[in-house]
């Protein structure tokens, strides 16, 4: 286990150590200042990129060059990962474990004190999106630029009639994509396969799967199995009879996003899981029922918390509902737990998601080494449901609502 504490002094020691060099490196110059270089960027090493241009004389020169240097990694990753080949057969060729939020891969299962029985599996190479499809700004390099700097992170937008129309359309497409994914769920199917279905259905509809490359997320949807709370990465694991799995889809179409998710049963699940999933569904349902102009955003958390407590389950506190529209995530922030300090009241024309994550055991979450997958701290199961909502003059419109054609997979919906 590497010593996590380090100081500037240690770097100097390393660089002044006589290395067992083979002599070739004495020709390398610091990419920034030109002095003789004996230090190398570890990411370049990992990606097996050439040393020329990736060597530095000191940590300081390296740090100073960092913001321009790192684009080399992104370019390299895009060209190696976006090979275009779809690994539909579950051969292990080219499939690796995800690390660093999607910016790295490793052939070995990472170290972690896993909280439950689930383990990450290798993931397939990055899927491509045809050029005719309108893409958000993170599609090329993994980094959203408009979103973090927008005023919409501080002010809740009132959508115009035209924007609302687009959101209705996109919300409906997102619903249809999710339904397509729901239809393929059964024991033996991998979450990677679900991702392929989501990816292809989205593109067939002319949309871009928003999660793809969002802050380097490697896939087109999130698949969260059993103790995974959210942001699970589709991989080579086959769903098993008795699992529960959440599929979270966001589609970007005509310049706006539509976001929804549902938790499904794989084969026959036990009573505790059925209870958890149904209770989660009800939490969302009850939250939506209070949405109308004048209601405080804070209140959503109270409603969810009340129902969860009464049902003997707990509410995840680290992730929240969010504003949505031309941005994937923006104001307002909507916590799902009670006694929160969320600011503001609902107004007609606002669009946001509510997406409670409910745990069978404790509320606390932990993060897997991949930097995305959130799991319950006690390894017990977690379920989630999400809709994109529009506040209307008198109440609410669910933009991602079930359609008559939506698969009949929730027993409690049958009268």
């Amino acid at each position, binding site marked *: 286990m*590497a010593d*996590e*504490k*380090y*100081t*500037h002094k240690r770097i100097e020691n390393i*660089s002044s*150590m006589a*290395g067992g*060099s083979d002599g070739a*490196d004495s020709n390398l110059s610091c990419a920034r200042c030109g002095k003789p*270089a*004996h*230090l*190398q*960027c*570890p990411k370049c*090493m*990992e990606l097996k990129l050439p*040393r020329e241009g990736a060597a530095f004389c000191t*940590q300081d020169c*390296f740090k100073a060059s*960092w*913001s321009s240097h*790192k684009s080399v990694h992104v370019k390299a990753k895009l060209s190696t990962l976006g090979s275009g080949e779809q690994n539909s057969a579950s051969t292990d060729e080219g499939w690796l474990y995800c*690390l*660093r*939020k999607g910016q790295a891969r490793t052939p070995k299962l990472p*170290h*972690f004190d896993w909280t439950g029985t689930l383990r990450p599996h290798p993931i397939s190479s990055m899927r491509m999106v045809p050029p005719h499809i309108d893409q958000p700004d993170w599609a090329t390099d993994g*980094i*959203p*630029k408009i979103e*973090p700097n*927008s005023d919409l*992170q501080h002010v809740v937008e009132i959508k115009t009639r035209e924007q609302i129309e687009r959101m209705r359309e996109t919300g409906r497409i997102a619903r249809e994509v999710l339904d397509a994914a729901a239809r393929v769920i059964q024991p033996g199917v991998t979450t990677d396969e679900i991702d392929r279905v989501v990816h292809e259905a989205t593109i067939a509809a002319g949309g871009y799967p928003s999660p793809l490359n*969002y*802050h*380097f997320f490697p896939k087109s949807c999130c698949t969260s199995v059993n103790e995974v709370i959210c942001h699970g990465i589709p991989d080579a694991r086959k769903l098993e009879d008795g699992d529960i799995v959440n599929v979270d889809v966001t589609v970007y179409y005509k310049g706006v996003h539509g976001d929804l998710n549902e938790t499904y049963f794989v084969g026959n699940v036990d009573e505790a899981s059925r209870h958890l999933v149904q209770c989660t569904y009800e939490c969302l349902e009850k939250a939506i029922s209070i949405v109308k102009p004048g209601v405080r955003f804070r209140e959503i958390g109270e409603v969810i918390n009340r129902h969860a407590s009464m049902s003997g389950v707990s509410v995840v*506190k*680290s*992730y*929240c*509902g*969010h504003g949505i529209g031309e941005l*994937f*995530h*923006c104001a307002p*922030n909507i*916590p799902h*737990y*009670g006694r*929160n*300090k969320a*600011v503001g*009241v609902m107004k007609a024309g606002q669009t946001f998601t509510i997406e409670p994550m409910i745990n069978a055991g404790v509320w606390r979450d*932990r993060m897997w*080494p991949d*930097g*995305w997958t959130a799991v319950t701290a006690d390894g017990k199961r977690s379920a989630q449901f999400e809709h994109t909502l529009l506040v209307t003059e008198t109440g609410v419109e669910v933009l991602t609502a079930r359609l008559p054609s939506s698969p009949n997979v929730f027993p409690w919906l049958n009268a």
Partner: protein
Amino acid sequence: MEDEDEEPPLAVQINDTGDLYSPLSQEQFDKPEKAEASVGVTVITGYLGAGKSTLVNFILNSHHGKRIAVILNEFGEEIGVERAMINEGEGGALVEEWVELANGCICCTVKHSLVQALEQLVERKERLDHILLETTGLANPAPLASVLWLDDQLEAAVKLDSIITVVDAKNLRFQLNKHRDSSSFPEAFLQIAFADVVILNKVDLVSPEDSGSVLEELEKEIYNINSLANIIRSVRCQVDLSKILNCRAYDATHATHLEALLEENQSLSTRDLHDSGVRTLCICEPRQVNLDKVRLWLEEILWDKKFNMDVYRCKGVLSVLNSDQLHTLQAVREIYEIVPARKWKGEESQLNKIVFIGKALILLF
């Protein structure tokens, strides 16, 4: 909002055939949850040269036996890493460390990446008693306060303890007057307005003959802007640590401190409207109040900016209808909370007292 940059990893010696991942980037072995009290975070603001670094060094180097980490907010969020100094070396020697800001999707997470980074720091250390966040060139501490003032429900490993601003007794008058000559709002007002503690430093540099009245004038000036702050005079920032650490200024249940504060503000409303327009306004109401109505009233002021009032801070004690609990009120910009803190004692006079600090404040009920 920040950019999603990762920190530069530790560059490795060429021909180093060891682990591919630098120590900094290696995922931490998670430790089991420590059910300990959360670590207080103090935000330190102040003009360049007022003495922030002096204060930080004084706190770090005093032999108080406390293990303290200082985060030097130098890089902002561009590089994705902050430099930290901790007095955990031999005999309290300072050890430097990097704190990595979590990348990526902060948009649907409740905790800002800075909070996550501080929590990871606390988790990594065997023992950390306090964290100082030294801001450089930050005019307005409100965004930082909002990020750090977490809901109790989150049971976070860190909590906002107080905002301290260091002002320079020699230059303060000049800094406060600056706005007369320029169109910009001087940082000094904001820093004072948001402070829980104001350290009036370099008092020794004020000319000794009239230092008494000069200092009193300065304190009055500060008081007019923010009557809730505790003003401490100092030379080279040598202050009594018990007054600046563990203030619990944002602890809803720490009612005694709040009550004492409001006691001093009894009938106060700074009638002398400060030139900046920033002032303190106090409201007293003996009758019990309807909590729902108070919320609506407060929200009109804080969220709707009624009459264009710009509230920076608000603190209060409420006597609520149909409740035997004293409620505390606390607000930083639009974020506010009203929480039952303790039972009213039999002999107490149950009064409502609310103090506002802000611009363009007018009395309204």
